[in-house]
């Protein structure tokens, strides 16, 4: 009997939880805020689902109920992607080491 592809996805999922566990424990506490904003940005990869939904319409009917939900979801996710990555970048720029003049 063949293995259901779901099992493979489940395996990826569970292994990723473990990866996440170890990677996040190694994040330095002073960067916990950027960690939250960047995880926010990357979880907006959900935009791929929104794009699929939005593009599902044909040339004649660009907007039906389901694609409209897709379009709104694209806006929401895009706010998050740009906002999340840029604000993370802005925060990370601020973290500086002690300057040499203090020696």
């Amino acid at each position: 009997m063949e293995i259901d592809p779901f099992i493979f996805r489940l395996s990826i999922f569970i292994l990723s939880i473990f990866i996440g566990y170890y990677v996040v424990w190694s994040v330095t506490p002073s960067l916990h805020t950027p960690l939250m904003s960047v995880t926010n940005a990357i979880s907006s990869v959900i935009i791929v689902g929104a794009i699929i939904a939005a593009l599902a319409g044909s040339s004649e009917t660009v907007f039906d109920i389901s694609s409209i939900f897709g379009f709104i979801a694209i806006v929401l996710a895009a706010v998050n992607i740009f906002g999340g990555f840029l604000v993370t970048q802005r925060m990370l720029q601020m973290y500086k080491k002690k300057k040499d003049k203090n020696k």
Partner: protein
Amino acid sequence: MISPNLSAIFYLVSGILFILALRGLSSPDTSRQGNYFGIAGMIIAIVVTFLSIGNFSNSLVYVIIVLIIGGAIGAFIAFKIPMTAMPELVAGFHSLVGLAAVFVAIAAFLNPEAFNLGFVGQIKLASLIEMSIGAAVGAITFSGSIIAFLKLRGIMSGSPIIFGGQHFLNLILGVGIFVSIFFLCKTQESNIFWTVVMISFLVGVLLIIPIGGADMPVVISMLNSYSGWAAAGIGFTLENTALIITGALVGSSGAILSYIMCKAMNRSFFSVILGGFGADNSANDKNEKRDQKPVKSGNAEDAAFLMKNASSVIIVPGYGMAVAQAQHALREMVDKLKKNDIKVTYAIHPVAGRMPGHMNVLLAEANVPYDEVFELEDINNDFANSDVAFVIGANDVTNPVAKTDPKSPIFGMPVLDVEKCKSVLFVKRSLSPGYAGIDNELFYKDNTLMLFADAKKMTEDIVKNLD
């Protein structure tokens, strides 16, 4: 127009880039590079999605337009937002992820053909379960984050809202979601799907209203985690590796942060979720105490004098510093002290502020080098050897009661050993107790000098007196 296999490989690549993005945060040096990995991963995922659909009809133009609109809004927010507003920004962003997940699930339910999930009324069972879970978790994330946002922004009172039978109601609603999903699978009835979404919105609200302001670090981390699980649920529905990997990463990241925050308060996750902490203010009791015990209070001049004659100073910032926006003034003060060859370090409690790492970001914004900022366990032994502790806007995290009084609600919580310093300067607006609603013994110690003022104003006055 690329094959499904090829696009799956690309999604895997973008998932790996996201892992590297988080990995980069292990040190500030590598973090910026990590962020670029994250951006690259996102670009790959989006481009591959376009290519794999290969539908370049009119729709594409509209998709790109809304993408740009959303992106512009996001960029605008990212550049304009003050660093002190970071907690509510993160809460707001969580709500967007949650709502996007709900909408994608709705779109998939209404038009399953587009996602290869079967047909309306005959959606594959596994997909139906996955999309309802994604929609339910997404809806809880959305409405919960909105409440958290309102509380953090001060639009809604930060104090817990509790009513009788609250937990029972949540339980019933939670069970209701599962029962509804079960019937949804049997009947494929769209009304039941909408019911699941609606109940979940309600649960999100009910879950967060009983949780008070200072428990917000846990709430934000928890909602972070939920947004991840919602994304993973949708990832299973869409059979998309990038989403599954990301959802798992974000889910576990938020869970770990919640755990760290709970541990830093010595509270169980459940006691935070059940809420109501610090709600009962037995104010009379406190007033009596206050009258009995003498407090030494001073002014900026005294504080400046004390610090000038010290050889080492430890600064303990808290939420009050964020509220007063005192970080820049603080940095100025520290610069003056350093010129007099006084050693200055910062001590940060994990739950100082309203979100994990809140204080670190504010200090970084004020150009404080991150190697002068220490976490609780790294600096706690230094208090005994230091001359002055300058507590600005923190309270409960310095309360020695946590170590001495088993009856205290914060007993067992790890606290900064501020009282071991030769002298303590405590900037605070009044003697009112902190969030936990308990008196801080530190106020009445002989070596404590209370500085009653707004944190920013007091710090500025001290700066003047240091000249």
